[in-house]
């Protein structure tokens, strides 16, 4: 990660801008939305190992005086899934990328809740992102 940040420093013009956009260290929430009403089913339990490593890399290049943070914003985004198959695919990728060492119980909860609904129900995953802006020094 530090090497990637040094590469960004190298290819950026003087006073160039670096944007780091990634999930915040806040657990994602899974639920079902129907007719505009949200029903939460489970809060995930990510370890945030990668996010903490990224924070350390940022701190490292800040100490080297390569970049200086100028802005930080946090906001929530949602992803909407129409079918259990979509959710299964998201969940498999989520487990792989967040390196969860246990199978969350969310699948059973979503399957049960979703099966009992008709019409425009959607499975929704909500979670905040952090947007950090840095200036090349």
């Amino acid at each position, binding site marked *: *990660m530090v*090497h*990637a*940040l040094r*590469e*960004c420093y*190298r*290819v*950026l*013009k*003087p006073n*160039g*801008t*670096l*944007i*780091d*956009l*990634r*999930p915040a260290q806040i657990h994602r929430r899974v639920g079902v939305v129907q007719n505009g009403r949200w029903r939460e089913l489970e809060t995930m339990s990510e370890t945030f190992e990668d996010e903490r490593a*990224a924070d350390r*890399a*940022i701190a490292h290049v800040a100490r080297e005086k390569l970049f200086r943070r100028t*802005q930080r*914003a946090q*906001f*929530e*985004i*949602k*992803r*909407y*899934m*129409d*079918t259990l*198959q*979509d959710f299964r*695919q*998201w969940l498999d990728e989520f487990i792989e990328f967040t390196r969860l060492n246990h199978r969350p119980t969310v699948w059973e909860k979503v399957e049960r809740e979703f099966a009992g609904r008709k019409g425009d129900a959607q499975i929704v995953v909500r979670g905040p*992102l952090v*947007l950090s*802006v840095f200036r090349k020094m």
Partner: protein
Amino acid sequence: MTLLIDPEEREIRELFRAVAFKNREVLEIGCGDGRLTFRYAAVTRRVHAFDQFDDLVKLARQNTPTDLRGKIHFGNASAEQLPYPAERFDLALLAWSL
């Protein structure tokens, strides 16, 4: 399969609020299938967007809207060894990739 990520477009609104993309030479690392790239590229001078996963880069190329074809270059490269000379870009975007 129907998967909609951020249909409310919060992500792109926050990006545009934080940084000026207009006429900038942009490097994006971690472009994936181009979902975010397609939302900001129109206002830039040019975007060089990379991902380490070749299948996603192919998908991004296939899905590039016609009006953005001359503006975005998608490639496969490591963030630790970028194929560019020094001081080339105005803006570097690490999109879910650090």
